[in-house]
C-alpha cells in the first residue's frame, strides 16, 4: 500500500479543482461565478492551515517508490504557492468578473497550475519534475490567453507556448543525456554516478540548466517574459512573477543540490555569471519602461538574479536566504499587483498615466504600491532589506564578494525606476488632470489583501526571525 499521506496536499488541491469545475456546471448559466472564488479561497485557506501540521523532524514521507518526497523544503514552497494563489484569487475577483469570459474554467485551470507547482516542489526525480513543470506551464499557456477582448493576451499566449515548447524540448534532451550518463532519473542515484563527469553527462547538465534558465527568464533566455507579462491578465502576471518563478527556483535548487552537487565546480561559476547578467540587465532594461506591468517583468528578471546569488553560495545559509527572499517577494508582489489589478479594473490600464493622481483618489493603494516597490528594491525597514542582507551575506561568505557588490549597486539603481511609479502617483496634478482624477472605489477583498501584504512586508522587515525560523525548519530535512 502506498503512503497517500505524502500527497495529501496535492489531493486537497485536486479536490478543489474538481469542485470548481463542478460548481461551474451546476450554477445557472447566466449567473455570477463569484461563489466559485469564495469556495476556492476558503479551500486554499484550509489547505494552508493543514500544511502547517505536516512539518516534521526525522525522515520525510515519500510516495511511489521515492519519486515524490514530502519534506519540509517542499512544504515551505507549497505554502508559498498557496499563499500567492490565495491572495491572487482574493484581489482579482472584480477583475475576473469584468474581463474573463468563463470564470469557472479560469479558477479550475488556476488550481491545476497550483497542482503543477506543488508536484514540482516535491519532485525527487527528473520525470516527476518534468510532469509537474508541464502541468504548471501548460495551465499558464491557457491562463495567459484568457482575455478574449484583448489581442495582446492571445499574442502573449502563443509566444509563451512556442518559447515554452522550445525550452521544454531543450530540457527534455538534457534529461535524456543525464539519464544516458547516469542510468537513472533519481536525483540521489544521479549524484552517485561517476559517469556524470564524462562529456555526455556534462552536456546533459548544461541543457537542463538552459531549460531552467528559460523558465526562470534568465537573460539571455528572457525574450518571452516582457511580452507575456504585459499581455497576460494582471492576476496571471502576478502568479507568473511569484508562483511560476518560485516553483522554478525551488526545483532548480533541489536538482543542483541533490543531483549535481559533485559537479559544483562546473556550474557554480556559470550560475554566478548568469546571476550577475540578470541583475545588471534586468535592472537597466526596467528603467525605460512606462507600463508598470512591463517594468515589473524586467524587475522580476532582476529578482531571479538576486535569488540565483543565494543559490550560488551552495550551502544551508544560501538556501535559507533564497527561501526567505522568495517568500517576501510574494508579499511584495501581492501588494503591487493587487493595486495594479484594482487600477486596471477602474481605469482600464496599467501605465504611468493610469497611475497618475492615485495618491489623491485612493491614498491607501498608492501607499501600498510604494511600500511593495520599496521592498522589491530592498529599502529598510521593509522585508526586502533583510532578504537582500541574508542573500548577499551568504554569497560573500562563500567568496563571491564581486557578485554581492554587483547586487548592491544594481539594487540602488532599481530604486530609481521603482520610485518613478511613486512619482507618477504622488506628483502634483494639473487642473485638467485634477478634473479627470475620479475617485477609485476599493472593494473590501482588495483592501484586505493590500493591508495583509503591507503588514507582512513591514512585519517581516522589522522582525525577520519568524520567517527565518520557518526557513530553518524547512531546510532541516533537506541535506541528508
Amino acid at each position, binding site marked *: *500500500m502506498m503512503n497517500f499521506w505524502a500527497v495529501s496536499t496535492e489531493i486537497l488541491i485536486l479536490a478543489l479543482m*474538481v469542485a470548481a*469545475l*463542478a460548481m461551474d*456546471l451546476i450554477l445557472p448559466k447566466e449567473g455570477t461565478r463569484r461563489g466559485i472564488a469564495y469556495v476556492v479561497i476558503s479551500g486554499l485557506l484550509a489547505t494552508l492551515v493543514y500544511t502547517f501540521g505536516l512539518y516534521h523532524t526525522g525522515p520525510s514521507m515519500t510516495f511511489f517508490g521515492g519519486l515524490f518526497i514530502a519534506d519540509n523544503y517542499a512544504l515551505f514552497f507549497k505554502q508559498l504557492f498557496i499563499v500567492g494563489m490565495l491572495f491572487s484569487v482574493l484581489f482579482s475577483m472584480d477583475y475576473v468578473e469584468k474581463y474573463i469570459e468563463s470564470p469557472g474554467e479560469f479558477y479550475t485551470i488556476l488550481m491545476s497550475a497550483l497542482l503543477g507547482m506543488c508536484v514540482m516542489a516535491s519532485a525527487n526525480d527528473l520525470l516527476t519534475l518534468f510532469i509537474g513543470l508541464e502541468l504548471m506551464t501548460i495551465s499558464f499557456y491557457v491562463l495567459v490567453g484568457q482575455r478574449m477582448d484583448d489581442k495582446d493576451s492571445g499574442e502573449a499566449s502563443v509566444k509563451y507556448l512556442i518559447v515554452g515548447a522550445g525550452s521544454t524540448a531543450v530540457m527534455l534532451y538534457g534529461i535524456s543525456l543525464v539519464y*544516458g550518463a547516469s*542510468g537513472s532519473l533519481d536525483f540521489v542515484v544521479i549524484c552517485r554516478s561517476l*559517469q556524470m563527469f564524462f562529456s*555526455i553527462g556534462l552536456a546533459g547538465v548544461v541543457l537542463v540548466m538552459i531549460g531552467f534558465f528559460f523558465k526562470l527568464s534568465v537573460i539571455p533566455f528572457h525574450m518571452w517574459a516582457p511580452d507575456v507579462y504585459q499581455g497576460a491578465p494582471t492576476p496571471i502576471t502576478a502568479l507568473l512573477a511569484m508562483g511560476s518563478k518560485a516553483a522554478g527556483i525551488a526545483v532548480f535548487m533541489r536538482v543542483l543540490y541533490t543531483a549535481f552537487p559533485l559537479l559544483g565546480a562546473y556550474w557554480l561559476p556559470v550560475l554566478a555569471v548568469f546571476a550577475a547578467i540578470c541583475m545588471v540587465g534586468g535592472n537597466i532594461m526596467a528603467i525605460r519602461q512606462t507600463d508598470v506591468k512591463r517594468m515589473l517583468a524586467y524587475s522580476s528578471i532582476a529578482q531571479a538574479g538576486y535569488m540565483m546569488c543565494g543559490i550560488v553560495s551552495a550551502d544551508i545559509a544560501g538556501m535559507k536566504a533564497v527561501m526567505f527572499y522568495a517568500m517576501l517577494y510574494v508579499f511584495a508582489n501581492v501588494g503591487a499587483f493587487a493595486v495594479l489589478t484594482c487600477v486596471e479594473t477602474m481605469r482600464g490600464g496599467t501605465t504611468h498615466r493610469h497611475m497618475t493622481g492615485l495618491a489623491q483618489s485612493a491614498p491607501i493603494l498608492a501607499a501600498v504600491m510604494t511600500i511593495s516597490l520599496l521592498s522589491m528594491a530592498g529599502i529598510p525597514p521593509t522585508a526586502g532589506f533583510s532578504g537582500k542582507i541574508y542573500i548577499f551575506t551568504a554569497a560573500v561568505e562563500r567568496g563571491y564578494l564581486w557578485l554581492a557588490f554587483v547586487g548592491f549597486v544594481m539594487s540602488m539603481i532599481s530604486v530609481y525606476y521603482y520610485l518613478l511609479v511613486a512619482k507618477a502617483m504622488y506628483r502634483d496634478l494639473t487642473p485638467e488632470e485634477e478634473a479627470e482624477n475620479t475617485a477609485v472605489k476599493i472593494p473590501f477583498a482588495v483592501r484586505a489583501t493590500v493591508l495583509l501584504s503591507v503588514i507582512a512586508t513591514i512585519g517581516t522587515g522589522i522582525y525577520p526571525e519568524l520567517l527565518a525560523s520557518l526557513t530553518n525548519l524547512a531546510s532541516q530535512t533537506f541535506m541528508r
Partner: protein
Amino acid sequence: MKIMGDFGGLGIFFVVTLIFPITALIPAFLLQPRHPTKQKGIPYECGVDTIGKTYVQYRIGYFLYALIFLVFDIETVFLYPWAVRFGALGLFALLEMFLFLGILGLGLWYAWKKGALSWK
C-alpha cells in the same frame, strides 16, 4: 560506455527500420513506368470523382467529437487490463477505478454542459 551496451540494440533497430522502407521504395521509384494522365492525377477519394475544391474548412464540431471519443478510448484502455486482473487487484483497485471513471464522467459532463455534443 554504458549507453552503447544497453541501447545499442535499440539503435540497430532504428537503423533497420530506416533502411527497410528506403530499400523498398527506391527500386520501385526507379523501375516504375510513368504515363501520367489527367484522370490519374486527381485525388483518390474512395474511387469517386472529387467535387469542388479540396481546400475546405472543417467544422470545429468534428474535433470536439474526436476529443470526446478519446475520453471513452482511454477509458477502455484502462478498464480492459483492470477487468482481466480484477481478482488479484482487489478492493483498492475497485475504488481507484471508480475514481478514474468519476473524473472521466466529470469531463463528459463538462463537455455536454458546455454544448460540445450539440451539432450546430
